């Protein structure tokens, strides 16, 4: 069958829109490899100088480590609180469940700037500005909705007859949970944990207010972009893109598909 002209037009239009979507990523890669001493595009030659500058700068490395462990702590904390919450929302039968459901998702609806300013005000009083655990607490609030959404979707599709079989065979409730329920939920748990990690690792606005002098990677990037356009930031960007791609591949391989969770 011949492709109708309207379809061909659609494909061409979409090609252009995809180009628009990918354009920033396509620009960042060559700049990060530029041999020019300042921002120039296309680069006159290739070099690793910006990657070297990133790796040799203790400030950048510090910020990277800080973001990595804050992200990891956020993921653990968000799972520890979010998974029981999702269980309560799907399996519990208690008054106020709908209200709690709304509250758990509210942090994604309330504009981040409002959350940031509000928590900044509180943390200034509690002297939590500049502490890593202060950031972990705030990032956990932001990551909780992702965990709840993914785990609730996983629990909705869960075949409860498997748990009933285990309990019928004499397993205690705790044993059923640890040997049957959680292993079966593993794909959802992996997705939820990795999403929570990325949401913290990429987070700028809250970090801008709460990080103080202890830079996270996004805060350091924000400050650098504001001050000067230095190609080091392109090298950092490329590494961030690669890290996020790795996480997405991990979700695709071991996690529950994002498409399934969207339902």
């Amino acid at each position, binding site marked *: 069958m011949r492709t109708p002209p309207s379809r061909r037009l659609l494909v061409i239009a979409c090609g252009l829109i995809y180009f628009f979507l990918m354009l920033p990523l396509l620009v960042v890669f060559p700049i990060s490899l530029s041999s020019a001493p300042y921002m120039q595009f296309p680069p006159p030659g290739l070099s690793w100088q910006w990657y070297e500058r990133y790796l040799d700068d203790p400030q950048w490395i510090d910020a990277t480590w800080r973001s990595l462990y804050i992200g990891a702590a956020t993921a653990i904390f968000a799972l520890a609180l979010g998974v029981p919450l999702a269980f309560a929302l799907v399996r519990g039968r208690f008054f106020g469940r709908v209200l709690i459901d709304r509250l758990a998702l509210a942090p994604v609806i309330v504009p981040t700037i409002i959350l940031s300013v509000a928590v900044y005000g509180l943390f200034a009083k509690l002297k939590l500005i500049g502490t890593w655990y202060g950031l972990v607490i705030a990032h956990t609030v932001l990551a909780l909705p992702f965990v709840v959404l993914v785990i609730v979707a996983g629990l909705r599709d869960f075949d409860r007859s498997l748990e009933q079989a285990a309990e019928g065979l004499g397993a205690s409730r705790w044993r059923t949970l640890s040997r049957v329920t959680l292993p079966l939920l593993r794909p959802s748990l992996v997705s939820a944990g990795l999403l929570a990690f990325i949401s913290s690792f990429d987070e*700028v606005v809250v970090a801008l207010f709460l990080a103080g002098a202890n830079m996270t990677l996004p805060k350091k990037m924000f400050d650098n972009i504001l001050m000067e356009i230095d190609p080091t930031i392109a090298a950092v960007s490329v590494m961030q893109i690669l890290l996020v791609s790795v996480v997405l591949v991990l979700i695709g391989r071991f996690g529950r598909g994002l498409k399934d969770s969207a339902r």
Partner: protein
Amino acid sequence: MTGRGFLPALPALILLFVFFLFPVVRMLGFSLEGGTLDWYAKALGEQLYLRVFWNTFEIALLVTFFCLLLGYPLGFLMATTTPFWATVGFIFVLLPLWTSVLVRTYAWMVLLGRNGVFNRTLMEAGITTDPIPMLHNFTGVLIGMVHVLLPYMVLPIYGAVRKVDPAIPAAAAGLGASSFAIFRRIYLPLTLNGIFAGSVLVFVLSLGFFITPALLGGGRVMMIAVLIEQQVREALNWPFAAALSAVLLVFTFAVYAMAQRFTRSEAEAAR
């Protein structure tokens, strides 16, 4: 809170109450300092600040419009093509979505700047002699925000188009309907829900947007979120920042509430 299975929710609820609900309510309380509504009168009465609200709405509306214009074809193509190309399409939509907003904003600065890629190309091609200002103005903010928010429009539209039974457009084509008629009479009405969901999401996210206007606007494009940040960090004017936040929050919830009513009545009408 009586009933079964409430206990597991408790730790998360404590976190949400202490570090989300309480700080937000506490801060909003500052706006009523002295027991008057003066700070609200300032936010909604003074020309300068009304302009900021108006600017924010204008940008949010334009961003929604352009996201729809670009997002519908993408979602439509991904939903109606072969599984292989749909997967490729998904990767191209999700990769930018998961790339840090900072990285993308930086790239746009490189592209749109005075000596940026676009201006150099235009000048070398002899189309203009002077660089066209695209950064630190309305255009730059608009381009950056559309780029960041486009995936949020594509995904719901993709979902809506997927739900359309392919037999319906096939039957219409068999009966001689033109492509345009098929789109207007079949796809458009059947995917209104997806269009609506995507538009509400993009509009609400635009209202509270901070990073892109702060960096690409260069201080010349004022949006509510940027104004709130300035009031807190530079002016140290907490009561005013709180009043601005309250207004932004009310707008955000109002849009959501309207959206929910609309989708509910839509669902009732469909029955």
